[in-house]
């Protein structure tokens, strides 16, 4: 109990603490009172209204669950569906875990500091819910597990805390879709995520954000990867969002552990993104890769990346490419920090436009100028992500495809 009291105390002291990056949000303007929603059984999930279903599908949620091994679905503050079909995989609401399972305390706030800023503090003091997904030792998820965090009530501040544990030698694939009800005007999403990749485990986490023009988003996530573990973190955000700031961090503590971050972002008019990835390479032989593809269509995108090499023999690369299509700003900030003799880190960053030569080449094969542009943009956004199951590759392609038309 003393631990819990101490967490609360630290959170209380941080309620006024502004984040290091991103515009400050006045959380007082948003409601946090619980919003009840009806629980949906499997069949009811398939029968959500068409407009809502469309929003869900765009965020990578398969309401039929046919291609998913399990589902966690939270609407506003309430869990509306939670179930798993695969042996060796557990999916449960974090509030249930906190009440029932002692072991969750080994993970809760162990990687993200509760007093990092006012958002982490809010998630402790007014936790709504969140998911715990765990693959047991040696288990492997044949189909990805899906999680959806949905904002339905206008003016709500949704506080979520997720814990993901891939036990030794297990393989776990998760797709998380975050989206809003059609027509939602304003809201805040605060999402804490803590990832634990144990020895020789493989975890892929694909997050598709599909927010709305008046939504403010502050994810806070930290991962830890043990010996021989692999963590693949994909992030896709093709839709407008008023302000999104996050700097997910991974600690490669084990020998030969690997982390790969892939980020695909389109900045639309009125949107401000400040995002990046940070990898601490601490284990001998650990490797890190951060790849981002950013398009600005009139939005403002800051693309950060930070590699910290702490021991000899690590290798890491950071690649940031930006295309300014219809105005806006892309600000790439790649950072390399070597702290030992024998680290190998590199980066490449480029911000530019589509080469006319490439458009002409495709036109000489019969495409119109618009078709050629769109093929090049799609190619620019499609990064080859190793170790991703085909269903997830499909979802990423779909998200890119769907936004393609609006972009031109």
């Amino acid at each position: 109990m003393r631990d819990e009291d101490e967490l609360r105390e630290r959170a209380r002291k941080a309620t006024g603490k502004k984040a290091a990056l991103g515009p400050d949000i006045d959380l007082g303007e948003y409601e946090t009172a619980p919003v009840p929603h009806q629980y949906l059984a499997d069949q009811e999930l398939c029968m959500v209204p068409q407009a809502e279903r469309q929003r869900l599908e765009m965020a990578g949620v398969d309401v039929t669950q046919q291609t998913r091994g399990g589902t966690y679905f939270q609407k506003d503050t309430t869990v509306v569906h939670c179930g798993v079909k695969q042996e060796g995989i557990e999916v449960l609401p974090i509030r249930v875990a906190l009440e029932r399972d002692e072991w969750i305390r080994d993970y809760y706030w162990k990687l993200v500091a509760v007093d990092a800023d006012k958002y982490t503090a809010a998630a402790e003091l007014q936790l709504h819910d969140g998911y715990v997904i765990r693959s047991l030792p040696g288990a492997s998820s044949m189909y990805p597990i899906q999680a959806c965090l949905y904002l339905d009530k206008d003016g709500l501040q949704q506080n979520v805390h997720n814990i993901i544990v891939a036990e030794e030698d297990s393989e776990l694939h998760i797709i998380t879709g975050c989206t809003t009800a059609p027509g939602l005007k304003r809201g805040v999403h605060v999402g804490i995520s803590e990832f634990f990749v144990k020895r020789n485990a493989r975890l892929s986490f694909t997050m598709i954000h599909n927010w709305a023009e008046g939504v403010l988003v502050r994810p806070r996530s930290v991962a830890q990867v043990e010996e021989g573990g692999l963590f693949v973190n994909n992030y896709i955000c093709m839709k407008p969002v008023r302000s999104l700031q996050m700097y997910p961090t991974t600690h490669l503590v084990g020998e030969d552990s690997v982390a790969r971050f892939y980020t695909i972002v389109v900045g639309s008019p009125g949107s401000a993104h400040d995002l990046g990835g940070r990898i601490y390479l601490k284990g001998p032989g650990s490797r890190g890769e951060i790849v981002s593809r950013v398009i600005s269509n009139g939005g403002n995108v800051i693309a950060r990346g930070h590699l910290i090499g702490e021991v000899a023999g690590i290798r890491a690369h950071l690649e940031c490419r930006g295309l300014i299509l219809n105005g806006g700003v892309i600000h790439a900030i790649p950072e390399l920090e070597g702290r030992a003799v024998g680290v190998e880190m590199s980066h490449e960053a480029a911000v530019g436009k589509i080469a006319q030569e490439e458009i002409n080449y495709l036109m000489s094969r019969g495409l119109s100028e618009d078709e050629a542009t769109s093929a090049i943009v799609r190619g620019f956004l499609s990064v080859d992500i190793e170790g991703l199951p085909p269903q997830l590759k499909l979802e990423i392609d779909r998200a890119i495809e769907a936004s393609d038309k609006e972009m031109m």
Partner: protein
Amino acid sequence: MLLIEDLQVNIGGRAILKHIDLEIKPGETHVLFGPNGSGKTSLIMAIMGYPQYEVVAGRIVFKGVDITHSPINERAKMGIGMSYQRPPTVHGVKTRQMVHICAGGRPDVDPEELASRLNFASFLDRDINAGFSGGEIKRSELLQLLAQRPDLVLFDEPESGVDLENIALVGEAIAVLLEKEREPGNARAMSQVKRERSKMGLIITHTGFILDYVPADKGYVLYDGVLSCSGNPAEILNWISECGYEECAKCAMKTS
């Protein structure tokens, strides 16, 4: 038919092509020789419609339509295609996708089958031209053209950089594109084959090696932007190697 009349082309204000006249009839293949920098690539880029090759006088007529100012894709749609000397890399666009684009929705185009003909199947899932070697670029370009099936094919040094084993594949692919493949054991009269043939070709070559695979009807020397010495391609090649380009360009022999 391709008809070029008194074509003058500038790049950045500098005259690159001067008073070019050229006519390629259906079924004919012509060959273009000329020293480095003489304007050969510029000529076919102008025919393809690249805007930086600014047409300041004259006209280009294809299949009876004046295309002098048509955009590139319209020319492609009308049946003009080219094999590039130095095509750009397009990141994220796979070779396989390029084959589909070239096929323009025609269902009978099988990328695997076409690629295997050019010993190129293992490249289908690579980004187009990314890190391709000189010889690989040539095969990639021909693969795309096999899917596109243009009526007028412009080849920019299709055999340069291709190794001895692949040269036969390249030669055969070009012959297929121009409907000049040898028909084994077919006793049809040559004149009949010629009448059925409608594809046109314009091939830039320094060595003439490609002529071993594709018979050509006519050759020219382009020298300092001026087209001269039209005649039998093999003879022209001989003259060039004996007397050099300059002498060859001086002999303004017109044989037609």
